[in-house]
Each structure stands twice: as C-alpha cells, then as structure tokens.
C-alpha cells in the first residue's frame, strides 16, 4: 500500500511537471526555440502571484485571473522585442540570449524580493485531502493534475481545431510559405510565446502553493520540464504529460527507497529512457 501511495502521489506530481513542460514544448514546436529562461519565468509567475495576493488579499487561485494575462503580455513583448531577433538558421543565439535572460530574471527577483523563501498562502486548499481506498489524496495535487489535463487538452484543441493552431503548425512547417499566405511569423511567434507563458503562469502559481520558492529555483524547474518533454517525445503534448508522470513517479519511488534519492531517481529514469528511446516514448511523426 505504501508503494501504491508513492505511485499515486508521483503521478499527481507529474501533473505539475507536465505544466512546467507544456510551455517549453509549445514554443519549441512552433519556433524551434529552446528557452533556457523557462524555469525562471515560472518562478517570476510565482512572485507575480505573491505580489498580487499580498496587495489585494486575493486567493492565489483567483490571482490567476491577473497573473495569466500579465505573463501572456510579457511573453508577447519578450518575443516581439527580443527573441524574434535571435531566431534564424543558427540555433545558438536564442540559447545564449535566453541564458542571459535567465540570469537577469534571477537577479532581478533577488533585488526586488530578496533571497528569503516565500510561499503562496492558499489556506485550507494546501492541506485538504480525500481518502480513496486507503490512499490519502491531497486536493491540491488532484487539482493540479486536473488542471494539467485541462491545459494540455486545451492546447491540443487549439493546435488542431482553431485558425490560430493552424497558423502555428503552418509557420512551424515552413516559415517562408506561411509568410506568403499572409501570416506574419513574428506576430504568430509572439502569440505562441504569450500562450506558453500563460501556461507558465498557471504552473508558477501551483508551484508557489505547493512548495516554498526563492529566486534561485528556476534552473531545477527547467530541468524537470526538459526531462518531461524529452521522455514524452518532442512536439507531443500528451506525451509530455506521460513524461511528467514518469518523472514524478520515479522521484517519489526514489524518495520511498531513500529520501536522498528523490531527484537522482528522476534523472536516472530520464537517462534510461533517453538511452533506450532517444526520440522519447511518443515522438511526433514528422511529415
């Protein structure tokens, strides 16, 4: 039963990792941009949530109404103002620029919020749980997992059933020809980044409710996000959810064996899958 508990908790934790990964996967899929600052943007969203909740007394979940659009705006501005200029045949400039961005965000947060660990106070939501067949399930992890499924379903639907999603796929396929069809790739990329950071905002708030955070933890979240994306297969959003779950389960099982093994077990699971299936478990079939 303890093992079952570890697996269930790990699965739910995977929902959070999938949310870390979804934005990363989205922008890589649309514009082949690897965003090194992704983890720090998650942390930035958590801090924005902190500011909103302390200033207005809102519940952190209600603060999403403000933080999600704010992050989306930041995403659009960031893409149009900075990242579009780095995109081209060479993959190195976006890596370097987002790495620099990561350093800037971390230090900016340090200046404004200090290095003290913070949490978002969500009241009863943090500790509430239900018992299912002898396993106690936290309401927050359940909610996180549900949100992850909803977000991935929503992204998937957007990609395959809307004009915006069609534009994303067209630009991803062939930028020049998409431009000929009247799609301005710079604007489309801006919208993709806005959507990705909107998802990142959700991930940041949920992270902030679940654990304490400080300006330096972005890098770790980036790694979890990357691992979930790679395990699931690049460009496959449902695969990303599976990747997150595998990572989460590996971590909780590792922690069950020895608390010191939690992170190591996750990385080992990632490396094993990378060695056996270099393209991930569910690689997108390319045309």
């Amino acid at each position, binding site marked *: 039963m303890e093992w079952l508990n570890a697996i269930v908790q790990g699965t739910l934790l995977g929902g959070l990792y999938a949310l870390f990964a979804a934005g990363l996967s989205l922008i890589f899929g649309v514009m082949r941009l690897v965003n090194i600052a992704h983890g720090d943007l998650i942390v930035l969203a958590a801090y924005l949530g902190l500011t909103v909740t302390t200033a207005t007394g809102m519940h952190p979940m209600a603060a999403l109404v403000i933080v999600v659009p704010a992050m989306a705006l930041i995403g659009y501005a960031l893409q149009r103002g900075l990242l579009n200029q780095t995109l081209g045949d060479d993959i190195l400039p976006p890596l370097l620029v987002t790495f620099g961005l990561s350093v800037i965000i971390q230090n900016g947060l340090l200046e404004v919020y200090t290095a003290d660990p913070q949490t978002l106070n969500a009241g009863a939501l943090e500790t509430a749980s239900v018992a299912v067949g002898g396993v106690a399930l936290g309401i927050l992890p359940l909610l996180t997992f549900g949100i992850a499924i909803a977000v991935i379903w929503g992204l998937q639907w957007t990609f395959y059933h809307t004009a915006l999603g069609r534009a994303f*796929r*067209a630009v991803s396929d062939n930028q020049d020809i998409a431009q*000929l069809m009247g799609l*301005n790739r710079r604007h489309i990329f801006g919208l993709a980044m806005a959507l990705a950071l909107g998802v990142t905002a959700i991930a940041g708030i949920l992270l902030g409710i679940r654990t304490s955070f400080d300006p330096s933890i972005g890098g770790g979240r980036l790694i979890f996000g990357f691992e979930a994306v790679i395990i699931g297969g690049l460009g496959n959003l449902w695969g990303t959810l599976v990747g997150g779950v595998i990572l989460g389960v590996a971590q909780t099982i590792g922690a069950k064996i020895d608390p010191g093994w939690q992170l190591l077990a996750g990385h080992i699971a990632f490396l094993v899958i990378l060695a056996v299936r270099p393209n991930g478990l569910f690689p997108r079939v390319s*045309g």
Partner: protein
Amino acid sequence: MHDPILQTRGLNSYYGDFQALYDVELDVGEGEVLAIIGANGAGKTTLMRSITGLLTNGPGQIHYRGQDISRLRADEVAELGLAMVPEGRQLFPSLSVKENLMIGAQVGRKGPWDLKAVYDLFPILEERKDQASTSLSGGQQQMVAIGRALMANPDLILFDEISLGLAPIIIKDIYQALPGIIGEGMSAIIVEQDITKALSVSSRVYCLQEGRVSLESASDTVSREDISRAYFGIE
C-alpha cells in the same frame, strides 16, 4: 498593353553577396498572362521571391498598382492581392488538405474563390480533404498548391514551375484547367521551363538569362530562333 498591375524598374536582387538579378524591367498588364522562361539558374525563382517579398529589394524597384511594394514583407504583399504557387508545391506537411486550403484564405480577401469553388475545380480534393497533404500524389499536391493560392482571391497569381516533376498527362490536365482559373480578370505570371506550354497560355513572354531580361515579345509571334538565342545566349 493595358494599365500595368505590376511593374519592376531596375530590379536588382541578391542572395547575400551574390547578385542574382540585374536591372530587370518587367510589366504585367491588368488581366494579362505573362510567361517567364529561362534556363536553370537564370533567376526566375529569384524574381518570384523578390516580387512576393520573400527577398528584400531596394526601394522603388517593384510597384503594384502604383504602390511601391519593394520593401514590404511577404504577408503584407499577400494582403494586397498577390499570391504564389511556389516551386515544388511546398504544402504544409502537418496540415490536412482542407487546412492547407484554408491557410490560403488567411489574408481574408473577398472574392469568388472559397473551399466550395476549389472543390468544384478539383473534385478529388474534396474526397481527400481530411488526409495529410503528404499522402497525395504529385499532381494532387499541385492542385492543393493552386487551390491554396486561389483561396486568397488574388488579383495577380504567380505560378512557379507548376509542371516540374509531374507526369505529362497531369501537366496537360493542369494546363487545361488554367484558363478557367485565370479568367475573371485575374492577372498571372507563369514561370515555366516547358516553352511550348508557356507560350500556349500567355500573351507575352520574357526570357531571363543570367539574371537579365534577354527577350521580351508577344507569345504568338515570337520565333524559335529568337527564343534559342535568348535562352542560351548563342548568336
């Protein structure tokens, strides 16, 4: 000639340091079908990329209906009513046949062409509308590429090497369909290696040779000797 819909004046195009076009002067009349012929590497595709805005040009080199479009981005040019059927078809592989067509309508111009009109023109595409565009035969893919350009309801449509890599029977079909496509006042530029085909559907012909216009003539009076000379540069 009618009023020009498109004019190039002293058009020079570059790929990096390499100059691909030299002082190209070209006029397309309203409702006119123009053919552009020339050997591989003569600059035909470069000319298409310059006109559509995929290559940036110097100011004042390309005018569309009197407006200087030489510095506009490709999506801005498309909105003015200029569409292209690119060389090698270049469909979007992750989009279905229907989605490829719908992307063409993205510019939001009103006109006679919509999904139904394209399906009426190429009924096979309606049967295959939910398939991946990559699963079609070459000829069917060319139909999608043509339909995609028509969905923009352009006033000027550019066909870049539409017969390249297709079976002769398919080429014949497509050329038979062309007059019906280009009718209704649309102007067209047809880039083609098959000179007979190019002359049969056009009213005037330009030949490019090493980035320069080497011949400009009416399609029905041009002689084979003139074409050979302009094409190969042999006196």
